[in-house]
Protein backbone atom coordinates (compact mmCIF):
# COMPACT_ATOMS: atom_id res chain seq x y z
CA UNK A 1 0.00 0.00 0.00
CA UNK A 2 1.26 3.47 -0.88
CA UNK A 3 1.58 6.25 1.65
CA UNK A 4 2.49 9.89 1.15
CA UNK A 5 4.84 11.27 3.79
CA UNK A 6 4.41 15.04 3.87
CA UNK A 7 7.40 16.62 5.53
CA UNK A 8 6.66 19.77 7.48
CA UNK A 9 10.02 21.10 8.51
CA UNK A 10 10.50 22.51 11.97
CA UNK A 11 12.11 25.67 13.19
CA UNK A 12 14.93 26.95 10.97
CA UNK A 13 18.29 28.06 12.29
CA UNK A 14 20.41 30.89 10.85
CA UNK A 15 21.85 28.72 8.10
CA UNK A 16 18.36 27.78 6.95
CA UNK A 17 18.40 24.20 8.26
CA UNK A 18 16.08 22.82 10.88
CA UNK A 19 17.63 22.76 14.33
CA UNK A 20 19.07 19.33 15.09
CA UNK A 21 18.64 17.89 11.58
CA UNK A 22 21.86 18.39 9.67
CA UNK A 23 22.15 17.75 5.94
CA UNK A 24 24.12 14.63 6.85
CA UNK A 25 21.07 13.30 8.75
CA UNK A 26 18.88 13.84 5.70
CA UNK A 27 21.39 12.13 3.41
CA UNK A 28 21.65 9.17 5.77
CA UNK A 29 17.85 8.86 5.94
CA UNK A 30 17.46 9.14 2.17
CA UNK A 31 20.09 6.47 1.64
CA UNK A 32 18.44 4.14 4.14
CA UNK A 33 14.90 4.48 2.77
CA UNK A 34 16.18 4.17 -0.82
CA UNK A 35 18.18 1.06 0.03
CA UNK A 36 15.09 -0.45 1.63
CA UNK A 37 13.48 -0.37 -1.82
CA UNK A 38 10.22 1.23 -0.64
CA UNK A 39 10.46 4.66 -2.30
CA UNK A 40 8.03 5.26 -5.17
CA UNK A 41 8.75 8.98 -5.53
CA UNK A 42 10.35 11.73 -3.51
CA UNK A 43 11.20 15.39 -3.90
CA UNK A 44 12.27 18.22 -1.71
CA UNK A 45 10.58 21.50 -2.50
CA UNK A 46 12.13 24.89 -3.34
CA UNK A 47 11.81 27.72 -0.88
CA UNK A 48 8.31 28.81 0.10
CA UNK A 49 8.80 32.33 -1.37
CA UNK A 50 8.74 30.75 -4.83
CA UNK A 51 5.19 29.45 -4.32
CA UNK A 52 2.39 30.61 -6.63
CA UNK A 53 -1.32 29.92 -6.32
CA UNK A 54 -3.74 29.42 -9.23
CA UNK A 55 -7.52 29.37 -9.09
CA UNK A 56 -10.04 29.22 -11.92
CA UNK A 57 -13.55 30.53 -11.23
CA UNK A 58 -16.85 29.38 -12.75
CA UNK A 59 -16.45 31.72 -15.74
CA UNK A 60 -13.07 30.25 -16.54
CA UNK A 61 -11.20 33.31 -15.32
CA UNK A 62 -7.78 32.52 -13.98
CA UNK A 63 -6.44 34.16 -10.82
CA UNK A 64 -2.76 33.89 -10.08
CA UNK A 65 -1.40 35.08 -6.74
CA UNK A 66 1.96 35.15 -5.07
CA UNK A 67 2.08 32.80 -2.10
CA UNK A 68 0.26 31.84 0.01
CA UNK A 69 2.81 31.98 2.75
CA UNK A 70 1.95 30.01 5.86
CA UNK A 71 2.03 32.01 9.05
CA UNK A 72 2.94 28.98 11.11
CA UNK A 73 6.50 27.81 11.36
CA UNK A 74 5.53 24.49 9.83
CA UNK A 75 6.13 24.61 6.12
CA UNK A 76 5.77 21.81 3.60
CA UNK A 77 9.35 21.12 2.60
CA UNK A 78 9.18 17.86 0.69
CA UNK A 79 7.59 14.47 0.41
CA UNK A 80 8.13 10.77 -0.07
CA UNK A 81 5.68 8.31 -1.55
CA UNK A 82 6.51 4.87 -0.18
CA UNK A 83 5.04 1.44 -0.81
CA UNK A 84 4.94 -0.60 2.40
CA UNK A 85 2.66 -3.33 3.86
CA UNK A 86 0.77 -1.27 6.44
CA UNK A 87 0.44 1.94 8.44
CA UNK A 88 2.80 0.80 11.19
CA UNK A 89 5.65 0.43 8.71
CA UNK A 90 4.85 3.84 7.19
CA UNK A 91 4.84 5.38 10.68
CA UNK A 92 8.22 3.80 11.42
CA UNK A 93 9.72 5.47 8.33
CA UNK A 94 8.07 8.78 9.27
CA UNK A 95 9.62 8.55 12.74
CA UNK A 96 13.04 7.91 11.22
CA UNK A 97 12.75 10.94 8.93
CA UNK A 98 14.70 13.95 10.25
CA UNK A 99 11.70 16.11 9.29
CA UNK A 100 9.78 14.64 12.24
CA UNK A 101 12.33 16.08 14.68
CA UNK A 102 13.13 19.51 16.07
CA UNK A 103 9.53 20.74 16.13
CA UNK A 104 8.79 19.47 12.64
CA UNK A 105 6.22 16.84 11.75
CA UNK A 106 5.70 14.23 9.09
CA UNK A 107 2.09 13.69 8.08
CA UNK A 108 1.33 10.21 6.80
CA UNK A 109 -1.54 9.82 4.37
CA UNK A 110 -2.53 6.70 2.45
CA UNK A 111 -2.77 7.01 -1.31
CA UNK A 112 -6.30 6.13 -2.42
CA UNK A 113 -6.65 2.76 -4.05
CA UNK A 114 -9.30 2.25 -6.72
CA UNK A 115 -10.46 -1.34 -7.13
CA UNK A 116 -9.76 -2.65 -10.60
CA UNK A 117 -7.36 0.16 -11.42
Amino acid at each position, binding site marked *: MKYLLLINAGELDLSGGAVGCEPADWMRFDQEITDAGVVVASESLADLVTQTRVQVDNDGKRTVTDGPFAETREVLGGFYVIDVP*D*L*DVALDWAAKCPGSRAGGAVVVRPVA*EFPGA
Partner: protein
Amino acid sequence: MDQVEAVFREERGRLLAALARRFGDLDLAEEVTAEAIEAALLRWPIDGVPPNPGGWLMTTARRKAVDRLRRDQVYAAKLAILQVDADRAEAPRPGGEFPDDRLELFFTCAHPALAAEDRGALTLRCLAGLSTPEVARAFLVPAATMAKRIVRAKAKIRDARIPFRVPSKDELPERLPGVLQVIYSVFTEGYAASSGPYLQRLDLAEEAIRLARILHSLLPAEREVAGLLALMLLVHARRDARTGASGEVVLLEDQDRTRWDHDQIAEGRALVVQSLTGGPAGPYAVQAAIAAVHDEAPTFASTDWVQIVALYDVLSALDPSPVIALNRAAALAFRDGPEAALTLLDTLADEPRLRDYHPYALARADLLQRLDRRTEAVAAYERALTLAGSDPERIHIRARLADLSNA
Protein backbone atom coordinates in the same frame (compact mmCIF):
# COMPACT_ATOMS: atom_id res chain seq x y z
CA MET B 1 -31.01 -17.58 27.02
CA ASP B 2 -28.97 -15.01 28.96
CA GLN B 3 -26.47 -17.71 29.78
CA VAL B 4 -26.13 -18.61 26.12
CA GLU B 5 -25.72 -14.92 25.28
CA ALA B 6 -22.94 -14.64 27.85
CA VAL B 7 -21.11 -17.60 26.33
CA PHE B 8 -21.41 -16.02 22.90
CA ARG B 9 -20.22 -12.67 24.18
CA GLU B 10 -16.96 -14.31 25.20
CA GLU B 11 -16.76 -16.33 21.98
CA ARG B 12 -17.72 -13.33 19.89
CA GLY B 13 -14.52 -11.42 20.69
CA ARG B 14 -12.34 -14.36 19.74
CA LEU B 15 -14.26 -15.01 16.56
CA LEU B 16 -14.25 -11.36 15.58
CA ALA B 17 -10.52 -11.03 16.20
CA ALA B 18 -9.65 -14.10 14.15
CA LEU B 19 -11.85 -12.98 11.26
CA ALA B 20 -10.64 -9.38 11.36
CA ARG B 21 -7.09 -10.60 11.11
CA ARG B 22 -7.97 -13.07 8.37
CA PHE B 23 -9.83 -10.56 6.18
CA GLY B 24 -8.24 -7.31 7.35
CA ASP B 25 -11.68 -5.72 7.72
CA LEU B 26 -13.65 -5.19 10.91
CA ASP B 27 -16.94 -4.54 9.15
CA LEU B 28 -16.91 -7.84 7.33
CA ALA B 29 -15.71 -9.61 10.47
CA GLU B 30 -18.54 -8.12 12.55
CA GLU B 31 -21.15 -8.93 9.96
CA VAL B 32 -20.24 -12.59 9.58
CA THR B 33 -19.60 -13.05 13.31
CA ALA B 34 -23.15 -11.89 14.00
CA GLU B 35 -24.51 -14.16 11.26
CA ALA B 36 -22.61 -17.19 12.56
CA ILE B 37 -23.90 -16.63 16.11
CA GLU B 38 -27.41 -16.19 14.78
CA ALA B 39 -27.08 -19.47 12.88
CA ALA B 40 -25.84 -21.19 16.04
CA LEU B 41 -28.76 -19.90 18.09
CA LEU B 42 -31.08 -21.31 15.45
CA ARG B 43 -29.39 -24.65 14.81
CA TRP B 44 -27.89 -25.79 18.09
CA PRO B 45 -31.19 -26.18 19.97
CA ILE B 46 -32.35 -28.51 17.14
CA ASP B 47 -29.14 -30.29 16.07
CA GLY B 48 -27.40 -30.19 19.47
CA VAL B 49 -24.24 -28.28 20.34
CA PRO B 50 -21.42 -29.44 18.03
CA PRO B 51 -18.36 -31.13 19.60
CA ASN B 52 -16.19 -28.10 18.77
CA PRO B 53 -18.49 -25.06 19.07
CA GLY B 54 -15.69 -22.54 18.41
CA GLY B 55 -14.61 -24.38 15.29
CA TRP B 56 -18.20 -24.63 14.11
CA LEU B 57 -18.71 -20.87 14.53
CA MET B 58 -15.42 -20.11 12.77
CA THR B 59 -16.18 -22.36 9.80
CA THR B 60 -19.68 -20.93 9.49
CA ALA B 61 -18.43 -17.34 9.70
CA ARG B 62 -15.70 -17.95 7.14
CA ARG B 63 -18.16 -19.54 4.74
CA LYS B 64 -20.45 -16.54 5.12
CA ALA B 65 -17.54 -14.20 4.48
CA VAL B 66 -16.62 -16.00 1.29
CA ASP B 67 -20.29 -15.87 0.18
CA ARG B 68 -20.40 -12.18 0.90
CA LEU B 69 -17.22 -11.53 -1.08
CA ARG B 70 -18.57 -13.57 -4.02
CA ARG B 71 -21.74 -11.47 -4.05
CA ASP B 72 -19.90 -8.16 -3.80
CA GLN B 73 -16.99 -8.10 -6.23
CA VAL B 74 -16.11 -4.44 -5.67
CA TYR B 75 -15.80 -5.02 -1.97
CA ALA B 76 -13.82 -8.20 -2.62
CA ALA B 77 -11.39 -6.33 -4.86
CA LYS B 78 -10.91 -3.74 -2.14
CA LEU B 79 -10.00 -6.43 0.35
CA ALA B 80 -8.16 -8.73 -2.04
CA ILE B 81 -4.73 -7.30 -1.35
CA LEU B 82 -5.30 -7.44 2.38
CA GLN B 83 -6.45 -11.02 2.23
CA VAL B 84 -3.32 -12.12 0.43
CA ASP B 85 -1.19 -10.41 3.05
CA ALA B 86 -3.16 -11.97 5.90
CA ASP B 87 -2.96 -15.43 4.38
CA ARG B 88 0.77 -15.14 4.03
CA ALA B 89 1.17 -13.99 7.60
CA GLU B 90 -0.95 -16.80 9.03
CA ALA B 91 1.26 -19.38 10.68
CA PRO B 92 -0.03 -22.93 11.16
CA ARG B 93 -1.48 -23.45 14.64
CA PRO B 94 -0.93 -26.61 16.66
CA GLY B 95 -3.91 -28.93 16.86
CA GLY B 96 -5.89 -26.93 14.31
CA GLU B 97 -7.50 -25.03 17.17
CA PHE B 98 -8.90 -21.72 16.08
CA PRO B 99 -6.46 -19.00 16.99
CA ASP B 100 -6.90 -16.41 19.71
CA ASP B 101 -6.16 -13.17 17.89
CA ARG B 102 -7.72 -10.90 20.49
CA LEU B 103 -4.36 -9.44 21.43
CA GLU B 104 -3.94 -8.22 17.86
CA LEU B 105 -7.40 -6.69 18.08
CA PHE B 106 -6.58 -4.94 21.40
CA PHE B 107 -3.61 -3.23 19.78
CA THR B 108 -5.58 -2.30 16.67
CA CYS B 109 -8.49 -0.81 18.66
CA ALA B 110 -6.08 1.20 20.84
CA HIS B 111 -3.85 2.24 17.93
CA PRO B 112 -2.42 5.74 18.43
CA ALA B 113 -3.44 6.65 14.85
CA LEU B 114 -7.10 6.51 15.95
CA ALA B 115 -8.77 9.42 17.71
CA ALA B 116 -8.33 8.99 21.47
CA GLU B 117 -12.11 9.14 22.03
CA ASP B 118 -12.69 6.35 19.49
CA ARG B 119 -10.24 3.86 21.01
CA GLY B 120 -12.31 3.11 24.11
CA ALA B 121 -15.49 2.89 22.06
CA LEU B 122 -13.96 0.45 19.61
CA THR B 123 -12.43 -1.66 22.37
CA LEU B 124 -15.78 -1.95 24.19
CA ARG B 125 -17.52 -2.80 20.96
CA CYS B 126 -15.04 -5.33 19.57
CA LEU B 127 -13.53 -6.92 22.68
CA ALA B 128 -16.17 -6.49 25.37
CA GLY B 129 -18.90 -7.31 22.85
CA LEU B 130 -21.08 -4.28 23.62
CA SER B 131 -23.60 -3.16 21.01
CA THR B 132 -23.32 0.35 19.58
CA PRO B 133 -26.22 1.68 21.73
CA GLU B 134 -24.54 0.17 24.81
CA VAL B 135 -21.24 1.84 23.92
CA ALA B 136 -23.13 5.11 23.37
CA ARG B 137 -24.64 4.82 26.85
CA ALA B 138 -21.20 4.06 28.26
CA PHE B 139 -19.84 7.34 26.90
CA LEU B 140 -23.08 9.25 27.43
CA VAL B 141 -23.47 10.27 23.80
CA PRO B 142 -26.44 9.71 21.46
CA ALA B 143 -26.43 6.33 19.70
CA ALA B 144 -26.27 8.00 16.28
CA THR B 145 -23.17 9.96 17.28
CA MET B 146 -21.50 6.82 18.56
CA ALA B 147 -22.44 4.89 15.41
CA LYS B 148 -20.76 7.61 13.32
CA ARG B 149 -17.62 7.50 15.46
CA ILE B 150 -17.37 3.73 15.21
CA VAL B 151 -17.89 3.82 11.44
CA ARG B 152 -15.17 6.50 11.17
CA ALA B 153 -12.70 4.50 13.25
CA LYS B 154 -13.35 1.29 11.33
CA ALA B 155 -12.95 3.13 8.02
CA LYS B 156 -9.59 4.48 9.14
CA ILE B 157 -8.42 1.01 10.15
CA ARG B 158 -9.40 -0.33 6.74
CA ASP B 159 -8.39 2.57 4.49
CA ALA B 160 -5.14 3.60 6.19
CA ARG B 161 -4.49 -0.09 6.74
CA ILE B 162 -3.81 -0.11 10.45
CA PRO B 163 -2.51 -3.65 10.85
CA PHE B 164 -3.91 -6.38 13.08
CA ARG B 165 -0.68 -7.28 14.77
CA VAL B 166 0.97 -7.49 18.16
CA PRO B 167 3.89 -5.08 18.44
CA SER B 168 7.31 -6.68 18.67
CA LYS B 169 9.03 -7.04 22.03
CA ASP B 170 10.94 -3.75 21.60
CA GLU B 171 7.84 -1.83 20.45
CA LEU B 172 5.76 -3.11 23.35
CA PRO B 173 6.93 -0.57 25.96
CA GLU B 174 5.71 2.18 23.64
CA ARG B 175 2.42 0.57 22.62
CA LEU B 176 1.19 -1.31 25.70
CA PRO B 177 0.56 1.80 27.84
CA GLY B 178 -1.92 2.97 25.18
CA VAL B 179 -3.94 -0.23 25.52
CA LEU B 180 -3.83 -0.03 29.33
CA GLN B 181 -4.90 3.61 29.20
CA VAL B 182 -7.99 2.70 27.14
CA ILE B 183 -9.04 0.08 29.69
CA TYR B 184 -8.28 2.32 32.67
CA SER B 185 -10.24 5.25 31.23
CA VAL B 186 -13.29 2.98 30.90
CA PHE B 187 -12.77 2.00 34.55
CA THR B 188 -12.35 5.55 35.88
CA GLU B 189 -15.57 6.64 34.17
CA GLY B 190 -17.23 3.72 35.96
CA TYR B 191 -15.56 4.56 39.27
CA ALA B 192 -16.60 8.21 39.28
CA ALA B 193 -19.05 9.11 36.53
CA SER B 194 -18.21 12.47 34.95
CA SER B 195 -21.89 13.40 35.01
CA GLY B 196 -25.34 11.98 35.68
CA PRO B 197 -27.40 10.82 38.64
CA TYR B 198 -25.03 8.11 39.92
CA LEU B 199 -21.61 8.35 41.52
CA GLN B 200 -20.51 4.99 40.15
CA ARG B 201 -21.40 3.09 37.03
CA LEU B 202 -20.65 -0.45 38.07
CA ASP B 203 -21.35 -1.99 34.68
CA LEU B 204 -18.56 0.08 33.11
CA ALA B 205 -16.08 -0.69 35.88
CA GLU B 206 -16.89 -4.37 35.46
CA GLU B 207 -16.40 -4.23 31.68
CA ALA B 208 -12.97 -2.67 32.26
CA ILE B 209 -12.06 -5.46 34.69
CA ARG B 210 -13.28 -8.06 32.20
CA LEU B 211 -11.12 -6.51 29.46
CA ALA B 212 -8.10 -6.44 31.78
CA ARG B 213 -8.67 -10.09 32.65
CA ILE B 214 -8.64 -11.02 28.97
CA LEU B 215 -5.50 -8.94 28.38
CA HIS B 216 -3.82 -10.47 31.44
CA SER B 217 -4.57 -13.98 30.17
CA LEU B 218 -3.02 -13.03 26.81
CA LEU B 219 0.04 -11.29 28.29
CA PRO B 220 0.60 -13.07 31.62
CA ALA B 221 4.24 -11.95 31.88
CA GLU B 222 3.53 -8.22 31.43
CA ARG B 223 3.61 -6.92 34.99
CA GLU B 224 1.85 -3.65 34.25
CA VAL B 225 -1.15 -5.58 32.93
CA ALA B 226 -1.24 -7.47 36.25
CA GLY B 227 -0.80 -4.11 38.00
CA LEU B 228 -3.74 -2.53 36.19
CA LEU B 229 -5.99 -5.51 36.91
CA ALA B 230 -4.90 -5.45 40.56
CA LEU B 231 -5.56 -1.71 40.84
CA MET B 232 -9.05 -2.01 39.44
CA LEU B 233 -9.95 -5.02 41.60
CA LEU B 234 -8.65 -3.36 44.77
CA VAL B 235 -10.60 -0.18 44.10
CA HIS B 236 -13.74 -1.88 42.80
CA ALA B 237 -13.78 -4.05 45.94
CA ARG B 238 -15.04 -0.99 47.87
CA ARG B 239 -18.01 -0.33 45.54
CA ASP B 240 -20.81 -1.37 47.93
CA ALA B 241 -19.47 0.80 50.74
CA ARG B 242 -18.81 3.89 48.59
CA THR B 243 -22.44 4.96 48.38
CA GLY B 244 -25.19 5.06 50.99
CA ALA B 245 -28.79 3.88 50.79
CA SER B 246 -29.86 6.82 48.60
CA GLY B 247 -26.77 6.81 46.40
CA GLU B 248 -24.96 9.45 48.45
CA VAL B 249 -21.16 9.62 48.66
CA VAL B 250 -19.57 7.79 51.59
CA LEU B 251 -15.94 8.86 52.09
CA LEU B 252 -13.19 6.32 52.62
CA GLU B 253 -12.95 7.31 56.28
CA ASP B 254 -16.67 6.64 56.86
CA GLN B 255 -17.01 3.43 54.86
CA ASP B 256 -18.20 0.21 56.48
CA ARG B 257 -15.19 -1.94 55.68
CA THR B 258 -17.08 -5.17 56.30
CA ARG B 259 -18.98 -4.35 53.10
CA TRP B 260 -15.82 -4.42 51.02
CA ASP B 261 -15.43 -7.41 48.71
CA HIS B 262 -12.72 -9.34 50.52
CA ASP B 263 -12.40 -12.06 47.89
CA GLN B 264 -11.68 -9.40 45.31
CA ILE B 265 -9.17 -7.76 47.66
CA ALA B 266 -7.37 -11.10 48.08
CA GLU B 267 -7.25 -11.56 44.32
CA GLY B 268 -5.98 -8.02 43.85
CA ARG B 269 -3.30 -8.41 46.51
CA ALA B 270 -1.93 -11.55 44.86
CA LEU B 271 -1.72 -9.67 41.57
CA VAL B 272 0.03 -6.71 43.24
CA VAL B 273 2.76 -9.02 44.45
CA GLN B 274 3.12 -10.36 40.92
CA SER B 275 3.23 -6.88 39.41
CA LEU B 276 5.89 -5.68 41.87
CA THR B 277 8.17 -8.70 41.50
CA GLY B 278 10.98 -9.07 38.99
CA GLY B 279 12.18 -5.58 38.18
CA PRO B 280 11.35 -1.92 38.63
CA ALA B 281 7.64 -1.33 39.26
CA GLY B 282 5.47 0.47 36.71
CA PRO B 283 2.93 3.18 37.57
CA TYR B 284 -0.11 0.85 37.64
CA ALA B 285 1.68 -1.56 39.99
CA VAL B 286 2.51 1.29 42.39
CA GLN B 287 -1.06 2.64 42.30
CA ALA B 288 -2.29 -0.89 42.97
CA ALA B 289 0.09 -1.10 45.94
CA ILE B 290 -1.38 2.13 47.33
CA ALA B 291 -4.91 0.74 46.93
CA ALA B 292 -3.76 -2.46 48.66
CA VAL B 293 -2.43 -0.55 51.68
CA HIS B 294 -5.83 1.13 52.06
CA ASP B 295 -7.66 -2.17 51.66
CA GLU B 296 -5.45 -3.90 54.24
CA ALA B 297 -6.23 -1.37 57.00
CA PRO B 298 -8.98 -2.72 59.27
CA THR B 299 -9.98 0.86 60.14
CA PHE B 300 -9.32 4.27 58.60
CA ALA B 301 -7.36 5.30 61.72
CA SER B 302 -4.98 2.37 61.32
CA THR B 303 -4.09 3.25 57.70
CA ASP B 304 -0.34 3.13 57.12
CA TRP B 305 0.08 6.71 55.84
CA VAL B 306 3.88 6.55 56.01
CA GLN B 307 3.81 3.68 53.54
CA ILE B 308 1.21 5.41 51.34
CA VAL B 309 3.18 8.66 51.11
CA ALA B 310 6.34 6.68 50.35
CA LEU B 311 4.51 4.89 47.52
CA TYR B 312 3.28 8.23 46.19
CA ASP B 313 6.91 9.40 46.15
CA VAL B 314 7.78 6.40 43.96
CA LEU B 315 4.77 7.09 41.75
CA SER B 316 5.62 10.80 41.36
CA ALA B 317 9.09 9.83 40.18
CA LEU B 318 7.63 7.45 37.58
CA ASP B 319 4.83 9.70 36.44
CA PRO B 320 5.22 13.30 37.62
CA SER B 321 1.65 14.44 36.97
CA PRO B 322 -0.22 17.16 38.89
CA VAL B 323 -3.08 14.75 39.70
CA ILE B 324 -0.63 12.41 41.42
CA ALA B 325 0.91 15.37 43.26
CA LEU B 326 -2.61 16.24 44.46
CA ASN B 327 -3.24 12.70 45.73
CA ARG B 328 0.14 12.66 47.41
CA ALA B 329 -0.69 15.90 49.21
CA ALA B 330 -4.03 14.48 50.38
CA ALA B 331 -2.21 11.46 51.85
CA LEU B 332 0.44 13.71 53.39
CA ALA B 333 -2.28 15.50 55.35
CA PHE B 334 -2.73 12.33 57.42
CA ARG B 335 0.99 11.82 57.95
CA ASP B 336 2.17 15.40 58.56
CA GLY B 337 -1.10 17.24 59.27
CA PRO B 338 -3.35 19.56 57.22
CA GLU B 339 -1.02 22.59 57.40
CA ALA B 340 1.82 20.85 55.53
CA ALA B 341 -0.59 19.39 52.98
CA LEU B 342 -2.21 22.77 52.32
CA THR B 343 1.17 24.37 51.70
CA LEU B 344 1.85 21.66 49.14
CA LEU B 345 -1.56 22.06 47.49
CA ASP B 346 -1.07 25.79 47.13
CA THR B 347 2.13 25.20 45.17
CA LEU B 348 -0.04 23.32 42.63
CA ALA B 349 -2.58 26.15 42.24
CA ASP B 350 -1.28 27.20 38.82
CA GLU B 351 -1.33 23.73 37.27
CA PRO B 352 -3.64 23.97 34.24
CA ARG B 353 -4.86 20.40 34.74
CA LEU B 354 -5.96 21.11 38.31
CA ARG B 355 -7.58 24.48 37.73
CA ASP B 356 -10.97 23.01 36.78
CA TYR B 357 -10.52 19.68 38.54
CA HIS B 358 -13.07 19.47 41.33
CA PRO B 359 -11.08 17.01 43.50
CA TYR B 360 -8.43 19.73 43.84
CA ALA B 361 -10.91 22.32 45.08
CA LEU B 362 -12.50 19.70 47.33
CA ALA B 363 -9.17 18.63 48.86
CA ARG B 364 -8.33 22.26 49.58
CA ALA B 365 -11.75 22.85 51.12
CA ASP B 366 -11.35 19.83 53.35
CA LEU B 367 -7.93 20.94 54.61
CA LEU B 368 -9.14 24.50 55.22
CA GLN B 369 -12.08 23.13 57.18
CA ARG B 370 -9.76 20.97 59.29
CA LEU B 371 -7.68 24.09 59.97
CA ASP B 372 -10.88 25.93 60.95
CA ARG B 373 -10.35 28.58 58.22
CA ARG B 374 -14.07 28.74 57.51
CA THR B 375 -14.46 31.59 55.03
CA GLU B 376 -11.78 30.14 52.78
CA ALA B 377 -13.22 26.65 53.19
CA VAL B 378 -16.67 27.88 52.09
CA ALA B 379 -15.15 29.52 49.01
CA ALA B 380 -13.26 26.35 48.13
CA TYR B 381 -16.37 24.17 48.57
CA GLU B 382 -18.33 26.55 46.37
CA ARG B 383 -15.65 26.31 43.74
CA ALA B 384 -15.76 22.49 43.94
CA LEU B 385 -19.55 22.64 43.63
CA THR B 386 -19.40 24.48 40.30
CA LEU B 387 -16.92 21.91 38.93
CA ALA B 388 -18.34 18.62 40.22
CA GLY B 389 -19.91 16.35 37.59
CA SER B 390 -22.31 13.82 39.07
CA ASP B 391 -25.35 14.59 41.21
CA PRO B 392 -24.16 12.64 44.30
CA GLU B 393 -20.89 14.58 44.29
CA ARG B 394 -22.77 17.88 44.28
CA ILE B 395 -25.10 16.69 47.03
CA HIS B 396 -22.07 15.68 49.09
CA ILE B 397 -20.43 19.09 48.68
CA ARG B 398 -23.68 20.90 49.59
CA ALA B 399 -23.89 18.79 52.75
CA ARG B 400 -20.34 19.76 53.71
CA LEU B 401 -21.24 23.43 53.14
CA ALA B 402 -24.33 23.06 55.30
CA ASP B 403 -22.23 21.49 58.10
CA LEU B 404 -19.89 24.46 57.97
CA SER B 405 -22.61 27.07 58.32
CA ASN B 406 -24.32 25.14 61.14
CA ALA B 407 -21.18 24.55 63.16
